[in-house]
């Protein structure tokens, strides 16, 4: 009976994590190494990322695509930032006890600013904001993860996730408003 049951496994599901690892382990390792400059720590980070990812595997539908690659890099690099900060004794401001904030309410980018945007300009703004903020916005709005899912993946509290999203939106809006004003001045 057991032998029979074991033969009816879904091979595709079984090899998903394996395929992700085989395809992206180098990208993950190099990303971690570029931040930490330490082989041991980089290996630990990749392992941690894999463990966290394996609990959230259903979110990945297509393995060999830019979206999945960026997703893994975001996870690895944020875990690396955490490790780096820990090593340097840096305490992120979000680690303070802050009441959870609504991430997509209160801060709304004005319509005229949105309509004005071109792809090249969005990239310009993204480069101006703090990378972890851009990452967290991407996880929330592009990968459409819940606050709890982001918290698990990046090993930060749900409160911190909310705070980061709030600050990222605020920062992006401020940059866009400044650029918008500059843009209007040129007309």
């Amino acid at each position, binding site marked *: *009976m*057991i032998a029979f*049951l*074991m033969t*009816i*496994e879904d091979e595709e*599901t*079984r090899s998903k*994590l*394996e395929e992700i*690892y085989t395809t992206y*382990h*180098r*990208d993950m*390792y*190099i*990303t971690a*190494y*570029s931040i930490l400059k330490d*082989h041991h720590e980089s*290996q630990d980070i*990749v*392992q941690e990322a*894999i*463990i966290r990812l*394996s609990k959230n595997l259903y979110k990945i539908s297509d393995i060999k695509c*830019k*979206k999945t*690659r*960026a*997703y893994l*890099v*975001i996870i690895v690099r944020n875990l690396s930032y955490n490790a780096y900060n820990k090593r340097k004794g840096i305490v992120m401001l979000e680690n303070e006890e802050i009441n959870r904030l609504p991430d*997509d*309410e209160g801060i*709304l*980018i*004005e*319509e005229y600013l*949105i309509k004005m*945007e071109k*792809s090249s300009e*969005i*990239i310009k*703004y*993204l*480069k101006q904001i703090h990378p972890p903020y*851009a*990452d967290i*916005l*991407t*996880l*929330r*709005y*592009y*990968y459409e993860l819940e606050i709890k899912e982001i918290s698990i993946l990046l090993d930060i509290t749900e409160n911190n996730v909310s705070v980061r999203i709030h600050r990222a939106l605020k920062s*992006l809006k401020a940059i866009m408003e400044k650029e918008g004003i500059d843009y209007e001045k040129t007309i």
Partner: protein
Amino acid sequence: MKKQFSEEIERLKKLNQMFLYDTGYKHAENIDEKTDKLLAEFKDIEIPESLDKWFLDYNKKIEKKKRIKRIKKTFVKISKKIAVIFIITSLISSIIMMSVEAIRINFFNMIIDTYQKYSLISHQENIGNNFKSKLPDEWKEYYYPTFIPDNFELITAEEFGNSKYLTFENKLDQYIKIIQSSMNFESQIDTEGATIIEIDLNGNEGMLIEKDNRVILIWNNDERIFRIQSNLDRNTILKIANNLEKK
């Protein structure tokens, strides 16, 4: 006005979500390009073999857990199906056993359906326990009473179909009628306003019906249905019933 305002906010929220989705998309593209550059920059870095080894071990554990989970899930599913099949099979078997005469359990079912005025008494034969007895000269296989109260005489001994009738009477207009019939016999008894008592006669279920100074005792054994009808008291009737012998 207020509604219009909230609709406008909702619209702006959706626009923001779309904008942020697009921003995320661009960010992912940026990351992809940046990672390519990083790989080129760190092309000489070798990935430690211990990482691969760790992954293989970890993946094995994960797969084992998944497999066990899947097996449990499948087992539960199959168990449910097996349980349903088992119940259906049991039901079908029971129905078959009840309907096939050859494997019927060795007892008689006396089915008594009480209607408003009459009780319908049905006797069903258990073929498995049917045995043949010695035949009397005139009648084939019959029971006769070894006890009859004093001063009673046999008035008639008649046979109609599969039923035999013995009638005893005395000079006080008291009578005893003993009727014995083969199985699958049905008779109707007036039970309106009667006292009905369930009795046990040598391990056989029976029914004693008393109405208007008349007693009817009806029961069956493995091969016959008996009915004693009399205007004597119930104890005398029971004594006669307990003292029937086969000839």
